[in-house]
């Protein structure tokens, strides 16, 4: 394994562990993650109302006539965003390329996450027996796979050229 590969792996693990340790602190959770999750809930509620679901929002809770759901860590897209962010920052590329990757990647991940929340709500409302498996296995896999594929495509496009052999 070459030096750039080892550097990437070490940096990725450190950034990933550090960022997840940071969001597990109470203050960060209460002042950053919870409001962000509230925003995810509000947007999802708005989309569900556009689809005629008559959803009411209370903080991170979405309540409709057939189903209610509380959006918590794991369903707000933050995990996928942090994995993507750690991979982009650890990868050898120009800072401008990283910035482009982060902005476009985070927007794309949140769009997919919005589809996940809306789809999960509709699953809970109309196909409740599929909700558990969809929630924990299907959509987690889809969102993480999406962010990993996004990173691979970005890395392939923006990788810094290899260092010349000395």
């Amino acid at each position, binding site marked *: *394994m*070459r030096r*750039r*590969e080892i550097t*990437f*792996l070490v940096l*990725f*693990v450190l950034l*990933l*562990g550090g*960022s*997840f*340790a940071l969001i*597990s602190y109470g203050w960060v959770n209460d002042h950053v993650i919870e409001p962000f999750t509230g925003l995810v809930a509000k947007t999802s509620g708005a989309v569900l109302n556009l689809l005629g679901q008559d959803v009411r929002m209370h903080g991170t809770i979405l309540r409709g006539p057939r189903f209610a759901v509380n959006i918590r*860590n*794991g369903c707000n897209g933050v*995990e*996928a965003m*942090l*994995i993507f962010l*750690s*991979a982009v920052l650890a*990868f*050898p590329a120009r800072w401008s390329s990283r910035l482009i990757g982060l902005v476009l990647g985070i927007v794309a991940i949140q769009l997919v996450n919005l589809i996940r929340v809306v789809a999960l709500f509709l699953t809970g409302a109309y196909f409740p027996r599929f909700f558990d498996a969809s929630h*924990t*296995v299907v959509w*987690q*896999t889809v969102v*993480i*796979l999406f962010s*990993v*594929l996004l*990173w*691979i*495509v970005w*890395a*392939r*496009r923006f*990788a*810094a*050229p*290899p260092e010349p052999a000395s």
Partner: protein
Amino acid sequence: MAASPPDNPADRGWSLRFLRNALLWLAPVWLVWTLLTPAYNRFLLGATENLLHLFESPDVTDLARHPSSRHEAYIVRRDFPPKRSLVRQLRVTDLHFHFVLLGSLFLAVPGLPWRKRLENFGLACLATVFFDLLLFAVWVKSVYATQLGDWSLAHYGPAARNLYGLAKHLLDLPFKLALPLLLWAGFYLGMLLGEPPPPPSPAARIQGTSRRKR
């Protein structure tokens, strides 16, 4: 059929073929994972129980299968009164769905001989099995340290409670979800960086030469 040579890293179609392959592999890998899940859950229960027993004296933890679900299990403590011995129910299947990601990513790499693809995937699966064992053991210990009320407070100090809580948080979320990416990068990052593939090992060179002679 002859194995195709590794792709030129500058090939612009690589990303598209990789994306297409990853999406095409998703459903078959999912199916295989679904079929193997009951057997793998049984293996994880037995192996993790043995792993926990290495650090217990006497052995008190049983990881028991749920009587009616192939996905659920119970953590049982033999030293607790019978009424309280089932300390927690958990969904074992949730520990290892990252195999679906792993399979899709490792089988999707275009332009790599099938033998090499499967060899790398096998090694990655082995690493993932060890990770799952560690995750399950830490999961059980974090239940003991943080979720059993007065019993946890009496048997685990603040440092141990924080350590097990943080370890479970980090292993169960970021590292469980990012493990496929981490392993994939370990094998294939050079392809993204545009570096030439490493030269074959001396053994492989000798094998290749003798095959050509034949």
